Structures are given as C-alpha cells and as structure tokens.
C-alpha cells in the first residue's frame, strides 16, 4: 500500500473519530478540525512515521492530543480560555436532557482543567476505551505511569465536581 493510498484509508477510518477526540478537549469544532488536519499532515510528511503503518493510529492520536494541548496552552497563557459554558453549538441543550447535559458540561469543564497528562489519559481511557498499554504507546509513557495518571485524574475530577456542589 503506497503512502497516498494509506492516507486515504487512514483518513476514512480515523478522521471523524479524531475530530471527536479533539472536541473533548477543545470547544471549537473548526479548531478541532484544523488540529486533526495538522496531525495528518505532520504524520504523512514524515517518512520515519510511515515506516510502520500499524503505529499510524497511535501517531495520529498523539499528534491530535499534542495539538489540542498546544491550543489549550496558548489560550491559558493569553487568559482567553473559554469554558464549556461559552457557546458550544454542538452540545445538546434539549430541555428534557437539561439536567444530564448540565452534569456533562460540568464533567467536561472539570476534565479540561486537569493537568495535561491526566486529562489525556482519561480521554483515551474513557472515550476511546484504549488499554493501558495502548495509552502508554500513544503518549510515549510507561504503563505504570498511565495507571498513576488515571487514578490521580479520577481523584482530581471527583474532587472538583464535589467542590462545585
């Protein structure tokens, strides 16, 4: 399979899910799409990364997380970080589900305030349902570290949500 064929296949298989992944960290869909497109370009113009196609999904996920992290950092530094309370057109707002939606917004807001690694690990674990070893490969850290970040991230998340009550 040549690089162009691989790109089309990988795009078809992963683009949509990667945009969704980015959307868990960034509230603006256009930015999410830009991050994912940047990730594809970065991975597919690097012959070193194309050497092992089986690792491409992990490279792409990693690039998306890095892109999202970079965006978040810029926003934090510029004090322009928008919370999920700001307009997010895609978030459900149906009256019937208002209570659940409110809880989900609170969870997302708390998640986004976590340290980078904890946030990334929780998203990979509880959204993509990756195993510890898959998360370790994606983030380039040890499996033990994944476990630590997961535990601490969940504790911090629970604490933040408790404090909001």
């Amino acid at each position, binding site marked *: *399979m*040549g690089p*162009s064929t*691989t*790109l*089309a296949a990988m*795009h*078809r298989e992963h*683009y*949509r899910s990667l*945009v*969704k*992944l980015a*959307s*868990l960290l960034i509230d603006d*869909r256009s930015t*999410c*799409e830009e991050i*994912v*497109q940047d990730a*594809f*370009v*970065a991975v597919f*113009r690097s*012959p*070193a990364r*194309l*050497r092992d*196609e089986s690792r491409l999904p992990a490279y792409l996920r990693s690039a998306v997380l890095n892109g999202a992290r*970079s965006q978040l*950092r*810029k926003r934090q*530094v*510029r004090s322009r970080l928008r919370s999920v309370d700001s307009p997010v057109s*895609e*978030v*459900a707002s149906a009256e019937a589900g208002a209570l*659940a*939606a409110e*809880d*989900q*917004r609170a*969870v*997302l807001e708390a998640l986004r305030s976590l340290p980078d*690694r904890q946030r990334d690990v*929780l*998203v990979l674990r*509880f*959204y993509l349902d990756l195993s510890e070893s898959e998360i370790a490969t994606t983030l*380039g*850290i*040890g499996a*033990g*570290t994944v476990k*630590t*970040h997961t535990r601490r991230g*969940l504790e911090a*998340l*629970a604490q933040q*949500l408790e404090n909001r009550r």
Partner: protein
Amino acid sequence: MNDIESRLAEALAARAADVEPHDQDDALNRISERVTMSHRRTFTILAVAAAVVVAAGTVAFLSGDDDKKQAVNIATDSSDPTTTASTTPTTVVRSAGPTPIWPFASDQRRIASAADAARSFAIDYLGMTNAVVGDSNGLDVQVFPNERASLRTIVHVVEDDTKGFVVVGASADMIEVDTPVAHDPLSSSLAVSGRSLAFEAQINLELRPYGSTSPVFEDFTMGGGSEVLPFSTTITPPSTDEPLVLVVFEGDASGEGAMSQATVIPLAAGSSESTEPPTPTTTRERTPEEAIDVHIRSSESEYAGPCDEAIENEEIDKYCSRLYEDRGTTRIYSAGIVFSEFDTWLLLTHGADGWTVTDAASAGTVDEPQPPPW
C-alpha cells in the same frame, strides 16, 4: 465502573456524539494537498540537485586530464527547463558526463526507461531484492525496499545516448549526507557527515569501485535510532588512483534484502597531494546552543534558547534547554517546552566542528522521572 468513571464516560460520549466534521472529502483534499506540497518541495530540491551534480561532473570532466577523457556526449536538453513545483517531468538531463554508477560499463544492455534503471539499480546494485518502484518526478525515481515499506530512496537517473537510462546517484530520505558531496575527490582521510534515522541508529558505509558491487572499504557509524540525528565519522579509504562510489545505507533488518535505504555518492579519484602547508582553519566552532537549535529544528519544533531566558507569552510553544552536567567534552542538557516540565535529555559531544547533539533520551514524567542514561 464507579460513579465518577460512568459520569466521565457518559459526558465524553455525549459531547463526541454531538460533533461531526464538516466535509470529510474536502478535509482529505486539503490534507493531501499539504502533504503533496511538502513532498514536491523535496522532489524539486532533489531534481535541481541531480542536475547540478551532472553539470558539476561535466565541468570536472571537461577540465580533467586528457588521458581521463571518455567518449561521451555532453548536452543538456533545456528545451523545457522548469524547476517549479510541478509533478510533471521537469529538467530533462541527457548524457551522463562522468561514468554512470549503473549499469556497469561492461554491461552492454540499453535500459529503456528511468523506472527500469532505478529498479535494476535497487535490486542488483543495492541488494533490495524485493524493490518496488514508486512515482517519479522527471528522472528522480522513488524506490521502496518492498511493497509494504514506506522507507524511500530517490534514485537519480540521467539519459545517455548510448546506454539509455543510467543511474548517477541516490538519496535516501532518512540518510542525508552533507559531506562528501558528489565528485569530491578521495583523500586519505574522508569526512562523512549528515543526519540519519535508522534501525538501532546504525548506518553502514561502503566504498565500491565503479563496475563492482564488492566494497573495498566497509565501516559503520551511529546516527539517530528513534529520530533524525546528526552523524559524523572520518574514514580512511584505501589508496587508489581510481574513483570510487560511497554507499551509505541502512541494513535491511527484515532480512529480505541487503539494504532498506541508501544514499549513493560518486567520488572522484584523489587529487595529487599538495605541497602547500595546511592552511589554519578559521571555521567557527558550533556552540552548544547552536547544536541544540539544529537538533530541535530537525524535529520540526522551534528552539527558544536557555530556559532561564525564555520570554513568557512570546515563546510559549518553543523548546528551551538547561545545562544539567558538564563533563568536559560531553555535556548533558535537559530540554522541554517553555514553562513546562522538561521531557528530554540531550547528550552533546564536542568534536572538530564544535558541539553536536549525539543522542537524546526521554526524561520521563513528573511522576516517574528518568535520569539521563549516559
């Protein structure tokens, strides 16, 4: 799954379910265009480089001694000499000028196309037994060691009136050789340097006579194993009055063939020893900061300089470094994103040209920091 885990999973699923990309076909087109643009830039540079190599070789040939002259036609057909970023064949280079590397002079066959020349060169000269030829840009032909691999070697071909299409060199994406350049004269001490990425960091060097695949000299050196890193070595070629071919390659770890990627550079016969005393070099040595800058930029990031001097807000996505240990001719630096925890150890070594980053390693995480491995 406990309560907080359930709430988190539900929140993530709900958010993701509400987001759909705008136009995926348009996104694929944009990505493809940007990737292609990047490759075109590389191809254009290589096409120009190949033309320059041939032109330089021709000039060297014309200015050479009479007894070294060979019967060749020297004519660069520049009826359509475009070097713009285009996928259509660009510069048509006719005549080999210097002796082609492939096919051998003793080979009487006439190769009918650039692709055929590249394929037979990859299989018979480089030992890529399952070589696959990819797209070509003019007379630069992509070769992969097998149909699964993305590791690319660009084979530079020119058209010769008598032998058809002949190979004058090759460039692997992951083995960039800065010195020597094509047609540099052989000397008793030959510096070979550049940047590379190869399995277990090892790249091999061979010097071969024209017309043979048997090396008269073999050595190896270390570049990058997980990222592109500089390599530098000095070899002592055997004493000879004949030109040689330098082959810098990564061995094929799969065992399918001899090589998985190779950069091939023709070298001229050694010049007569100068009777002039050596001129003291005035080249400025590379500082540690410059070496780190080169290393960071090779991984497509930006370097801000020492962490203590980084400017808040202006250098937020750049890398900075801090000296960790000074051991005289080697130094260890920590590096990381400005105003973040450092995540990388860098080993710098002082050589003839100054400082070079010779290895890099993960520094682990805040929870599980890793000491420098050197």
